[in-house]
């Protein structure tokens, strides 16, 4: 006979009383925990859906965004291989204009797409370089060549208007 069978009803009574006073049932507790976990996971899913809706709303508003038309430099103002810094499309956004050859100019946002450090132009490498983590961008299209950034630099669209270079818009998103 095992020990449980040895117990008389009187001997079992305190245990039963204890169970009545602290009625915690393991099976039920596990069951409730599972239910709570499912509820938590469902709320997490709702949060991620809200995130996707937020992106949708933001991109909806961005479609209607217009850029100002601003003269940023005069032709021949900067020598070949040199740069000029300017603000576009608002005073907070620094951009960099590079004269790559005689009549070729390119302009990009100066904020690195990794952690927003200011990029500079390296004439030796003919690349835009971020000094913080050595991210490098192509001067041709702003694409990432090496380093931690995963996205290209936003490109400032330029237009020649007489003897002036005019910024008319941007492609790519500015880091905020």
């Amino acid at each position, binding site marked *: 006979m095992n020990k449980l069978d040895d117990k008389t009803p009187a001997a079992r009574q305190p245990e039963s009383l204890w169970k009545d006073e602290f009625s915690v049932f393991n099976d039920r507790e596990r069951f409730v925990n599972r*239910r709570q976990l499912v509820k938590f996971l469902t709320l997490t899913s709702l949060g*991620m859906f809200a995130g*996707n809706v937020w992106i949708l709303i933001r991109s909806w508003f961005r479609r209607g965004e217009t850029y100002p038309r601003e003269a940023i430099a005069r032709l021949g103002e900067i020598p070949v291989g040199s740069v000029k810094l300017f603000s576009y499309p608002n005073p907070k956004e620094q951009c960099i204009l590079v004269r790559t050859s005689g009549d070729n100019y390119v302009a990009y946002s100066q904020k690195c797409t990794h952690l927003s450090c200011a990029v500079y132009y390296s004439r030796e490498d003919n690349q835009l370089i971020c000094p913080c983590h050595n991210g490098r961008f192509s001067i041709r299209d702003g694409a990432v060549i090496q380093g931690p950034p995963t996205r290209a630099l936003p490109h400032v669209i330029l237009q020649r208007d007489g003897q002036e270079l005019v910024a008319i818009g941007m492609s790519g998103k500015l880091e905020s």
Partner: protein
Amino acid sequence: MRRRITAIDGTIALIVLLLMVQVWLLSATLDVYLAGHSDAALPGALCSGIIFAATAGLYWFVHRIDRSDRRQR
């Protein structure tokens, strides 16, 4: 009771799989948005909504099992 717990465990596993897909979807949509494109925003939101509806349906399934179990007790 054991069969119900097994059903709930299976449901949780399915929800976790759906959440993994949803996490990937959110990060991919955010990456495309930050790269300056907005084409992926609508399909991303729609797919995420469908996944959320499926997760909510599974939650309702677990809730129903739990309720019937309580009634039986």
